[in-house]
């Protein structure tokens, strides 16, 4: 009986997570378009619902009812597989992410995470690495020049930025002496790790921008020179899959930044419920992503590679060494 309850609870948490992640693009696209509009002195969506709030729903219906077009020369199996491959890893990753300690519902303690893995950080980095297959397959299978170019770029970009990203979090792991995200957050109850690891955060966030393929590192779908990059040939629901995956990764990087460097649900000064603190911080990082997008131009491809290998990698290595020395 107890096992059944525990299993049911996990199933419930996972169901809530999946539902939340699937619905997430709705408010995020709205926010992104609104912020974009106002930064460019426009209004953004205004017509559907109050201040365009229902616009994402209308867009969703449009995407669902659109023709699902597969190019004649495409590799049909890979073409259909790619969106799923791109979508699944960001969803899987959220299993390992804690959103708070626990809340008591009807006298029962319910933890705010699906699982407390002791290698959560490693798991996340590993699984998110799979996401690149979706992008590469998508570009390759479409058999179009733009798409192949976009996915080649993504391939190189993902590989070169995963390394500094992995190195950047080592400093955090050293400080917390654990790879479990729960322990990492608990270790930050007094001082957030951003205080000890500013360089680590800097490298992590920039690599995260590249990993999420957001401006200024969105070379894989540079609409100016590649049409839409790897998803040029995708339409309808399959395109929506890529879209959802992109937003999920953006959320993931925001959540990871908060958990690893900004004290997770530990608040400062104002005593708010921990989950609220967590959400506020994550919201700030999501805003930061959008803000960056509409401020910076895109890096050139060679600059992208140079930043990754010549700046971020040495920086992250130096960070590890300095942290190690200070730690000893």
């Amino acid at each position, binding site marked *: 009986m107890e096992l059944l309850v525990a299993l049911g609870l996990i199933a419930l948490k996972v169901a809530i997570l999946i539902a939340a992640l699937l619905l997430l693009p709705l408010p995020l696209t709205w926010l992104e378009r609104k912020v974009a509009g*106002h930064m460019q*002195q*426009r*209004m953004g969506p205004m017509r559907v619902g109050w201040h365009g709030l229902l616009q994402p729903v209308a867009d969703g219906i449009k995407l669902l009812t659109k023709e699902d077009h597969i190019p004649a020369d495409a590799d049909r199996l890979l073409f259909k597989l790619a969106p799923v491959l791109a979508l699944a890893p960001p969803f899987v990753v959220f299993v390992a992410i804690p959103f708070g300690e626990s809340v008591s519902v009807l006298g029962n303690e319910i933890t705010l995470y699906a699982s407390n893995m002791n290698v959560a950080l490693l798991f996340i980095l590993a699984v998110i690495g799979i996401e690149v297959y979706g992008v590469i397959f998508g570009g390759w299978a479409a058999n179009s020049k733009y798409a192949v170019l976009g996915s080649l770029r993504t391939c190189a970009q993902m590989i070169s930025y995963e390394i500094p990203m992995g190195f950047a979090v080592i400093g955090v792991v050293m400080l917390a002496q654990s790879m479990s995200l729960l322990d990492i957050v608990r270790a930050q109850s007094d001082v957030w790790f951003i205080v000890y690891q500013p360089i680590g955060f800097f490298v992590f966030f920039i690599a995260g921008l590249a990993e999420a393929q957001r401006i200024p590192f969105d070379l894989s779908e540079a609409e100016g020179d590649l049409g839409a990059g790897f998803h040029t040939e995708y339409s309808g629901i399959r395109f929506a899959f890529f879209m959802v995956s992109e937003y999920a990764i953006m959320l993931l990087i925001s959540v990871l930044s908060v958990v690893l460097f900004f004290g997770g649900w530990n608040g400062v000064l104002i005593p708010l419920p921990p989950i609220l603190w967590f959400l506020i911080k994550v919201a700030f990082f999501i805003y930061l992503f959008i*803000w*960056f997008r509409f*401020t*910076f131009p895109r890096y050139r491809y060679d600059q992208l590679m140079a930043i990754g290998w010549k700046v971020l990698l040495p920086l992250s290595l130096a960070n590890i060494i300095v942290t190690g020395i200070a730690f000893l």
Partner: protein
Amino acid sequence: MSRVLDSGGKWIGWAYFADLGSALALTFSYMFSRTVTMQYPDKEKWLPYQRYRGHHFLKRDAEGEIKCVACELCARICPCYCIEVVPYEDDKGNRRPAKFEIDMSRCLFCGLCEDACPADAIALGQQYEFSSFSSDDLVVGRDDLLAKPGKAVSGGAVVAAQFQAGQDVRVEATGTQGYNWWRNIRRR
């Protein structure tokens, strides 16, 4: 990169991404500045300036008679030959147009007809929404021209408007008190 370094010891700013920071500050300040969007057609509408040259209209004199004396000067000066005037003599013995047609599809809104008219009978008014599915509808006769709105009185403003999609699609200004759209433009 090197150019930033060369320009006189600015490397400290470069090292701390001063340029990126100022760019972020700029976009952030724009985010809270006024938007320039005019919500045409369902909420707002542009009321043109007095000088605006829109759809023609024919004027009446104090007695309500049409001012035009059918001299055909406008038809002669028109560079597009889009005015056709046929005169007749009314019961009072005045020369008046029996037929006065303007082909709006050919008009280039130069306003020469307005300048040429000796009787101050024709002018280009404020109406600018007269697109049509048929070019036949763009040939406008005398009685329609008499009913067209005149020059804008207090122009150069954005006023509240209502969108009506019925038999003929219209955007009707509901308010008269508008705001000057140019106030929203940021200048430095």
